[in-house]
C-alpha cells in the first residue's frame, strides 16, 4: 500500500501544467482530487515518475449559468456539485448523480474533470454528461478544443484526450426533465449499472430523449433503441416498459458484482426507473 517514489510539482496555471507535462521525462501524470490515481499508485498499478498537481489552478472550479447554458469547471468536486444552487435549480440530475458517488470523503476530493478523464467504466458522471449532450472543453499546447460527450468516451478508460491535454470545463443546455438511477455496488458505491435519462416533453408527448448507461459495458454510451422507442410516446407505464425492454448493451461487463445476464437485466430495470423519474420531474 506504499507507492513507488515520485516527484511532485504544483501548476499555477493551465499553461504551466501543460508545459510541465511536455517537459517531463518518464511517466508524468496530472493529479486533481487523487481519488482514482492515488489508489492505483498505492497498489503499484500506476507508478508515475512525476505528479503535476492541477488542483490549485485558479478559475477551474465552480458552476455558472448563462442564458440556459450551464458550465462546470473541471476542478469542481462531487460534494460541490451535490449542493450547488445553480445545479439544484437548473440541472438537478447532476447534483443527484454526484451525491451518489462513493462516500463523503471521496466526494470532498474527487472532481468532475478527473472523473471524466479517468473514465472508469463504473463511474457515474460519464453517463450523465452523455445524456445531457454536454460539451467537454479541453486545453492543450495547440490551443483549445471542444468534444461532444457522446464522442469523448470510446472504450475501457479510453477517451479523446491527448497525454498533454487538460479538461477545463463541461457545459450543457439546462435539461428540461432529467434523472439518474443507479444500482450501486454495496462496498465502493461505484455503479453496477447507472442510467441517465434526459427528456423533452411537449403537450404530454415525448419529443426528444437521450438515455445513457454506465457500468454495463466498457464505457458510458447511449441506448439508441430506448431513445427511439420513447420518442413520440406518451411516457405512460406501458411506453416506459416497452422502451426499457429495448435497453440492449453490447460487450456487457461481468465480474464478481454481477454476471453479464444480471447486468443486462439490471440495465433494463434502471433504464425504466431513470425514465420514470425524469418523466415525473
Amino acid at each position, binding site marked *: 500500500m506504499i507507492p513507488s517514489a515520485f516527484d511532485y510539482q504544483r501548476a499555477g496555471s493551465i499553461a504551466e501544467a501543460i508545459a510541465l507535462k511536455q517537459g517531463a521525462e518518464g*511517466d508524468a*501524470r496530472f493529479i486533481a482530487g487523487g481519488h*482514482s*490515481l492515488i489508489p*492505483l499508485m498505492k*497498489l*503499484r*498499478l*500506476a*507508478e508515475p515518475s512525476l505528479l503535476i498537481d492541477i488542483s490549485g489552478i485558479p478559475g477551474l472550479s465552480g458552476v455558472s449559468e448563462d442564458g440556459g447554458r450551464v458550465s462546470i469547471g473541471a476542478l469542481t468536486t462531487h460534494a460541490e456539485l451535490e449542493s450547488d444552487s445553480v445545479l439544484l435549480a437548473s440541472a438537478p440530475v447532476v447534483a443527484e448523480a454526484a451525491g451518489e458517488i462513493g462516500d463523503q470523503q471521496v466526494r470532498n476530493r474527487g472532481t468532475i474533470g478527473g472523473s471524466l478523464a*479517468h*473514465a472508469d*467504466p*463504473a463511474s457515474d458522471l460519464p453517463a450523465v454528461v452523455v445524456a445531457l449532450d454536454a460539451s467537454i472543453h479541453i486545453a492543450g499546447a495547440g490551443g483549445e478544443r471542444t468534444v461532444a460527450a457522446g464522442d469523448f468516451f470510446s*472504450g*475501457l*478508460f*479510453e477517451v479523446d484526450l491527448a497525454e498533454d491535454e487538460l479538461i477545463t470545463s463541461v457545459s450543457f443546455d439546462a435539461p428540461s426533465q432529467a434523472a439518474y438511477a443507479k444500482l450501486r455496488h454495496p462496498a465502493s458505491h461505484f455503479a453496477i449499472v447507472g442510467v441517465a435519462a434526459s427528456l423533452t416533453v411537449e403537450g404530454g408527448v415525448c419529443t426528444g430523449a437521450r438515455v445513457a448507461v454506465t457500468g454495463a459495458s*466498457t464505457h458510458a454510451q447511449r441506448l439508441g433503441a430506448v431513445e427511439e422507442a420513447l420518442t413520440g410516446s406518451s411516457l405512460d407505464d406501458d411506453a416506459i416498459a416497452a422502451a426499457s425492454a429495448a435497453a440492449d448493451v453490447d*460487450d456487457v*461487463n*461481468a*465480474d*464478481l*458484482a454481477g454476471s453479464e445476464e444480471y447486468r443486462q437485466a439490471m440495465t433494463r430495470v434502471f433504464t425504466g426507473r431513470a425514465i420514470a423519474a425524469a418523466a415525473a420531474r
Partner: protein
Amino acid sequence: MRVDGEHRFDLSRSVMWEHLLNPESLQGAIPGCTAFEEVAPETWELTAQVGVGPVRGTFTGRVELRDREPESRYTLIASGQGRPGGGQGEAVINLTDDGDGTHLRYEADVTVRGAIARVGGRLLTASARTMARQFFDAIEKEAKTATERSAAR
C-alpha cells in the same frame, strides 16, 4: 479466466493469415514492442509496453505459435511478466470468410498473478478484450500497409 471474442477484418483470410503469423507484422502490432527475437522454432521472446488506461507496464514475455491449420486455425501460447504482475494464457484462433473480409474468433484461457490479479478482477475480462481489439486493429493496419507497399512496387 476464460476470455472469448470476435473481430472482423476487411482483408481476406489468406492475407490475414500471413500477417497474423508473420514475425515482422507481429512485432509492429504489439504495442511498444522493443525486442522480438526468435529463440526456438515458432517461439519468440519479446518486450512490450502493455496497458489499459492508467495501468501500464513494460512486460517481457514469450509467444509460441502451434497447431497451425493453414488459413483457418492456430494456437497461441503466451506468457509475460512485468511490474504490475504476470500472466500466461493459451488462445485458440479460428478464421472464417466473411464476405470479402475475414471473421476471427478467439477463445483464451488466461491466468494472471501479482497486483493485477489481486485487484484487477473487476476489469480483467474487459481489459483482455480491449487489448485483443487493439492488437487486431494494429495487425490489420500492418497488413494494409504491407499490401499497399507491394501494390505500389
